[in-house]
């Protein structure tokens, strides 16, 4: 059979961000993959060293807009750890609220993209409409639909009053049955099932081998979620079950995300119900001493690790990330092997890749 090499760009891949693939094919099947990254390289490591801690909170929120809250919240956690700060309990809960609301929006966006790629345009619009409830809520509570600016060193920058809490609870209520319905559609609808079941499989063994994280790992049966394994912030006081599937295919990944979106609704509700009174941030903060620290969290795409080194000034000496998309990209080659070329966009989007995190 003839071997050819084709190059695919963002448009053929169905991506919002510029990423290029060099794909080796045999007939109409994929037999090899090379990811040509770097288009979105903005020199983030270099930039973070030129910005002080305050500026970095805003800059890091722009490392990737879909996981945008996970970055500043994990960065602030790292700084607080170094400075020995204990943030007020109310702030811990409010950080979780911000993280979970972003998780719902992120997962729904991916779910919409998957629907679009399999040709379910009505479903695509429906999911985007549903997502608007979340977008609208973020804009109302935080003041922007994508970048929440919720975090500061020592706590959070927002303090919802009773009215805001009621509003948010109401919005969550509006999400519940459509989210359940959506889960059922991805689980059972014949067209979706046919398009996603058994497609782009990553076995549990392969998942382990590649060290994939987040919904990609959990869809392959790996029980790993930072919120459970090493709870941070308020998560040790919140009850939820790690969403697990076993098939490791496109369908399983979608189902994990939809289960997590539903769970996130419940997590926010728990936060709002348990929300302690008191300040949302420390009134002042001690100097951040010289030191090294690692902080991690469960971003929408999986485990996010921050490494921070300081020297006693308010500029970092080193800031480094292990972003969830990174190991997931590597495993893509396995998922695509033997699949028809026409399925590439679907399988690529099933890992919900983030290029701005990967390239940064």
């Amino acid at each position, binding site marked *: 059979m003839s071997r050819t090499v084709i190059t695919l760009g963002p448009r053929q891949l169905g991506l919002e961000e510029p990423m290029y693939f060099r794909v080796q094919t045999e007939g109409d099947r994929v037999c090899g993959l090379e990811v040509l990254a770097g288009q979105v390289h903005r*020199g983030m490591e*270099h930039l973070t060293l030129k910005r002080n801690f305050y500026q970095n909170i805003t800059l890091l929120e722009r490392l990737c807009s879909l996981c945008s809250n996970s970055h500043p919240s994990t960065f602030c956690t790292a700084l607080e750890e170094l400075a020995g700060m204990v943030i007020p309990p109310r702030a811990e809960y409010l950080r979780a609220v911000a993280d979970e609301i972003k998780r719902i929006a992120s997962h729904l966006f991916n779910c919409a993209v998957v629907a679009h790629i399999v040709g379910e345009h009505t479903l695509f619009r429906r999911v*985007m409409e549903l997502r608007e409830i979340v977008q609208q809520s973020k*804009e109302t509570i935080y*003041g922007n639909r994508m970048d929440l*600016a919720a975090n500061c060193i020592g706590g959070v920058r927002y303090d919802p009053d009773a009215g805001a809490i009621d509003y948010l609870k109401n919005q969550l209520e509006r999400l519940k049955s459509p989210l359940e319905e959506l889960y059922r559609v991805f689980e059972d609808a014949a067209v979706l099932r046919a398009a996603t079941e058994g497609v782009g499989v990553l076995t549990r063994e392969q998942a382990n081998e590649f060290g994939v994280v987040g919904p990609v790992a959990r869809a392959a049966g790996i029980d790993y979620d930072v919120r459970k394994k090493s709870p941070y912030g308020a998560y040790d006081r919140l009850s939820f079950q790690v969403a697990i599937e076993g098939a490791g295919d496109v369908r399983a990944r979608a189902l994990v995300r939809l289960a997590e979106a539903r769970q996130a609704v419940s997590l926010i509700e728990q936060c709002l119900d348990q929300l302690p009174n008191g300040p949302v941030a420390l009134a002042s903060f001690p100097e951040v001493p010289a030191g090294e620290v690692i902080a991690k969290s469960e971003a929408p795409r999986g485990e996010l690790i921050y490494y921070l080194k300081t020297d006693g000034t308010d500029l970092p000496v080193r800031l480094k990330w292990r972003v969830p998309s990174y190991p997931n990209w590597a495993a893509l080659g396995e998922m695509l092997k033997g699949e028809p070329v026409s399925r590439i966009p679907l399988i690529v989007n099933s890992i919900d890749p983030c290029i701005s995190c990967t390239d940064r």
Partner: protein
Amino acid sequence: MHTCKVPPAPKLRLYRINTGSCNGCDVELAATEALTRFGLERLGLSFTADPTQADLVLITGPLTVRSKGKVLAEYAQVPDPKITVLIGVCPISGGAFRDSYAVLGPLDEFLAADVNIPGCPPRPEAIVAGIAEAARLWRGGEGPQLAPAGFPAPANLRGRMSYRAEACVGCRMCQHVCAGGAIRFEEQEAGVSFTLWHNSCLFCGMCSHYCPTGALTPTGEWNLAHPQAQKYQMVEQGVVPRISCSCCGVPMLPVVPELMRKGYRALTRETAQLQTLCSECRQVRSIGGLQRCTK
């Protein structure tokens, strides 16, 4: 086929280019495209995946060194005349990513921009307003006016930042915390001048959060789309005038009531007097006061 009253004008096609964004503007653009409520269709606009078919080009992201070749080649494929819209502060000024070795922006150094839509990211309503402006330009200033669509802006929207020189003490904390490099202070004879450039502002509200006197506040104003000619007029400005110390005459910045209220809990005739004293005279006055008390 559904019929629609407006517009008689021919459909315009939009083509998107991402030059290396954080994807915030792109995800919002995707929502703007997908949802009829934002009203792009009603303006007679639709998206195309073929640059040679496009009339309007929408650009997001700061131009990265790596993406430059592809971006400019793609841009060149869009036939002239075309209208170019820069979405988000990234392509307009470099935004959060300015002065990185890997970023080349602003885009107008490489191509002719027509309309800028500041924001980080701008809300879909703002994106539509900017695109509507671009469509009007394309049609020679004619075309349907923008009908308000989408969601009404919530009360605590982080829109255009507003500055009150009367409340500013010139401490420059805002400049220190600003990741966008949007704030500049300049020492002038008359006083300290403050400039905030909305085309570099990330609308993060850090400046207002850390401002000790409330001189900076976010407004709900979100429609900041403007023609390229106005790019450098999109500023917030003010001068904190220097006064002479009412005791020794040395030039100084007045102590604003907001700060006096913080320091002294309430404003009285005495605190009003202290406001016009330089720090040294204030010290003397306070010590003098103390001596009076212990006499």
